[in-house]
């Protein structure tokens, strides 16, 4: 049973306040929607929740069955974001093998095949990412984020570069995650997600 809690989060960057005292508390099955115009700090907040970026003030804590998760939260979270870059010289299969070993887990070729089928890239498994279209890279990011079945899934502009079929796939992923753990979606397009349990609107949060 996972719980993600953000308390009094503030981010100042080069003396400009991006946002101040943002708090939230998410339990299993709950969805947080993060909205705000461009530059309001949606991606910054998502990076902070994923421990990639440290906040100027405030804390983000993961708790598994009540016990706070010490150290790397990498194994418990998956992130899909336009800022996440992949390695052009590697193939999809290599990326998914790397997705496990980099997190200190044993590779899972069977699981990799299954998640590649799910995101519709199985036929391009052995091709270098260099040859991928932007939509295909976005799909691979989903595979990269889902393979180790993280209880917490963070999606920043999830639908970017996706065709209709891709959008359907993402909706399926979001529904499934709702049942399994915590989902955070940062987007400008409110049609991306209908039902949510908590919302953080970053417009006007900088004063």
């Amino acid at each position, binding site marked *: 049973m996972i719980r993600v809690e953000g308390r009094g989060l503030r981010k100042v960057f080069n003396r400009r306040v991006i946002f101040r005292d943002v708090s939230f508390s998410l339990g299993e099955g709950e969805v947080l929607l993060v909205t705000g115009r461009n530059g309001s700090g949606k991606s910054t907040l998502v990076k902070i929740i994923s421990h990639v970026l440290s906040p100027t003030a405030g804390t983000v804590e993961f708790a598994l069955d009540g016990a706070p998760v010490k150290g*790397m939260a990498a194994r418990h979270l998956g992130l899909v974001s336009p800022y996440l870059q992949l390695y052009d010289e590697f193939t999809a299969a290599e990326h998914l093998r790397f997705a496990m070993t980099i997190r200190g887990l044993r590779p899972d070729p069977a*699981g990799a095949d299954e998640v590649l089928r799910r995101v519709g890239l199985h036929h391009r498994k052995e091709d270098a990412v260099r040859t991928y279209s932007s939509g295909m890279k976005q799909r691979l990011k989903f595979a990269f984020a889902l393979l180790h079945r993280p209880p917490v899934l963070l999606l920043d502009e999830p639908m970017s570069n996706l065709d209709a079929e891709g959008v359907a796939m993402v909706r399926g992923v979001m529904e499934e995650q709702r049942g399994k753990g915590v989902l955070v979606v940062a987007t400008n397009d409110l049609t991306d997600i209908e039902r949510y349990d908590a919302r953080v609107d970053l417009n006007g949060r900088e004063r």
Partner: protein
Amino acid sequence: MTPHPAAARPSWIRSALSVFRKDWQSELRTRYAVSALLMFVLTTIAIVLFALGTEGAPAHALAGMLWVVIFFSGMSGLARTFVTEEERGTAMTLQLTASPSAVYTGKLLFNLVLVYAVNAVAVLLFFFFIQGFEVRTASIFLVTLFLGSTGLAVMSTLIAAIIAKANTKGTLFPVLSFPLLLPLLLAVINATRLSAEGAFFTEALGEFQVLISYIGAVLTVSYLVFDYVWKD
């Protein structure tokens, strides 16, 4: 929610080795660092050859020359492992998935293997091209080469992580590394001179102690401060 079976006992070593293997796999495909380093060694040795002409040079001059070549070839290739991550934006992927010490260890192993390979080639070319360069006590020379290369890789990896976060990378790497590598360079040049003069192994023990304690100290401080450099 059943976590992935392997998620139970994630191992830090596997994460570090995965960074190391990823870097080497990427290096063998793109060959950024290796080609830069080898070309650099060749060109500098060519320059040394022209500079020496026919009359050759005394032992400690050649000892110094060898380590000048090794130092500057290191400066041209050892930053690549961190700089490409920042330039391509893939650093965030590593920050998301691995702990800072695992990333540092993986990158350090990559630079160690790189520097051993390149220095071995450099020494062979030196023996081959430069007549005056001969070693009477091989034991001193080999230990010096090993410790010197290790120390070079250890310090350069940490400085590479720093300059990768800077905006203007260019000449920053040698400028930041040189003063901090001076104790190592002075010790190895002195030890190489001893090996050229045929000194007994015990005479170079002082240098080896300096080198070993230098490597130990820099490794320790690297693990202490790397988190601050790596995490945004």
